[in-house]
């Protein structure tokens, strides 16, 4: 079936429940109301004219303030056509929920677990989303959400000459960022001058961010050095106390002193180094 014929099949079968259909690059994407999603998938699989028996993949997409969409790609090996089912999870960013497709396709099991692991979308009726599939068991947060920052970029600036992505905004701007980008994307065709201005504005905070990150790093290093110095001193004191308690031999005592000196010296030079870096 051609994408247009498929589109008609969906609008005939689901009428108002079809929110939107898009045909781009010869591929049909049908956005449905979440409650008919399972029914639509069942139709795709069991209708002999559709016969989408091959469960290809399922994936979440961050939509910014609107929440999350989940797309499911189905393919028919007998007819050679594709269907991309899409549904926007109700519940926004706080509690996104969708019905599970596991009763229709067995392959949906792991894909839904992955979507939950990455986006926090809960699939109702799934036999068991936990434990987390790809991240570690006690992982906190949903890594593929746009408000989850890539830590390496926060901790360390891009090593190349030119940052490929815009500067990561500092803490307080974080929740708004995804929404802003979505809007910008939606009005992308407005004009190149606007885009250019946006890019410039994006470039500006990069330097500031870097220097801020560097100073934060220095402060952290300093705090760590101080902490270590204190711990060493405590250890030395404890050693001294032990030495005083168990033996009167002065050798361990002096050894303890030496170590203390050495540690302090090393720590000071460390922190000096850190101070000199920025």
């Amino acid at each position: 079936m051609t994408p247009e014929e498929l589109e008609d099949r969906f609008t005939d079968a689901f009428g108002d429940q079809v929110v939107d259909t898009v045909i781009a690059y010869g591929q049909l994407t049908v956005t449905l109301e979440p409650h008919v999603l399972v029914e639509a998938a069942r139709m795709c699989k069991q209708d002999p004219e559709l016969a989408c028996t091959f469960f290809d993949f399922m994936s979440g997409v961050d939509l910014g303030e609107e929440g999350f969409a989940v797309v499911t790609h189905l393919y028919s090996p007998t007819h050679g056509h594709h269907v991309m089912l899409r549904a926007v999870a109700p519940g926004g960013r706080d509690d996104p929920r969708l019905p599970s497709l596991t009763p229709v396709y067995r392959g949906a099991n792991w894909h839904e677990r992955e979507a939950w692991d990455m986006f926090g979308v809960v699939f109702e009726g799934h036999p068991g989303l936990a434990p987390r599939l790809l991240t570690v068991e006690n992982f906190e947060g949903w890594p593929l959400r746009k408000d989850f920052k890539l830590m390496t970029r926060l901790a360390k600036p891009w090593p190349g000459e030119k940052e490929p992505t815009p500067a990561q905004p500092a803490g307080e701007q974080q929740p708004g960022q995804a929404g802003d980008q979505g809007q910008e994307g939606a009005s992308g065709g407005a004009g190149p001058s606007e885009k250019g201005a946006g890019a410039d504005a994006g470039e500006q905070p990069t330097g500031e961010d870097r220097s801020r990150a560097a100073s934060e790093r220095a402060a952290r290093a300093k705090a760590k050095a101080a902490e270590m110095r204190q711990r060493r001193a405590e250890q030395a004191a404890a050693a001294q106390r032990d030495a005083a308690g168990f033996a009167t031999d002065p050798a361990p005592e002096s050894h303890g002193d030496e170590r203390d000196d050495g540690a302090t010296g090393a720590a000071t030079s460390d922190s000096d180094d850190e101070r000199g870096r920025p």
Partner: protein
Amino acid sequence: MSETRAPQGDGGGGMPGGPGESMRLEVRDEEQGGLQTQEMNLNIGPQHPATHGVLRVVLDLDGERIARAEPVIGYMHRGFEKLAEHRDYRQIIALVNRHDWLSAFCNEIGVALAVETMMELEVPERAQWIRTLLCEWNRIMNHLMFVGSFGLELGALTPVFYAFREREEIQHLMESATGGRLHFTFCRVGGLKDDLPLGFLKASEQLVPVIRQRVQDYRDLLLGNEIFQARTSGVGKLPAEVALDYGVSGPALHATGVAEDARVTEPYAKYADVDVRVPTGETGDSYDRFRVLLDRIDASLDIVAQCLDNMPSGPVNVKLPKQVKAPEGAVYVRTENPLGQGGYYLVSDGKKYPWRLKMRTPSFSNISMLPYLLEGELLPNMIAILGSVYFVVGDIDR
């Protein structure tokens, strides 16, 4: 099921006559008068020679029979999908090299195709032919790896040495063109990094009959081996509809008799202009999967030969704008990777880096089917099944 296994246990495990008779492996259910057993929990991996990396399978064993199997993945999760959102399209080429390290070039081409489709770029003829050629060499390299390792896992040490000898020769060839042995990073949006070096086509032409002869050797060495047959035939039978339901693709799907191959049904690069043969099996067992894998090498050699015959001259890349930006929208591009169907779902908001890049990897879907295949099997058969599903752990976890 137990009836079909009983003769196999006789042929492979038991020693006929003498004291060995009593040691014969018999699998009987409780209803048939077997012993009452207690289930045991067993961890295979994450470090196990049969897992090709860090895959862990948690088994519930009832005697030697697997009652439940649950693969535990994520030990190699490197967050490629997140990283891709922070790279521009040229940098992503280097990134996708690394999720399935045995099929680097075939991955690169997927991303390049997705961006080209969105930008409506016309890739020069020669670049497309070279892509097809390198894809097939990469496919053969990948398959040789699994030909060797499958034998190794079943206890046949020899094939792996031979397979790596051939692999090395192809690797030299690829290295001469791309400079890399594993991560080629040769594909570019709109074409290729460079043209092929002088003598590449000649060397390819000489290598084709050599590999073809040696594939025949493996066929004799492994498929004709009685122990190999006993270990693999009838083991891990996968019905076609279950395979499709789980999204299983590649040799594992073809072995069930479904000849679904993106190179044929939706040809990309120059696959429309060459004759692509898709070998299929009948029963979908481990033996069939391996036979299909070997036949695929032959089919790929045929495509290589056709590429060499048709190689046109001309440019190998197009002039790109200073910033590569995919227009707003979404596209899904699927390619037939060596291990199965690979796909990239690219959502762009019109910037120079993707908004979302979903990597559909064959190994992920293939391994998600394992609980089905392992349930009810005998523990030693697990090796024959794991080895013939063909996966790369990096490709599962991404």
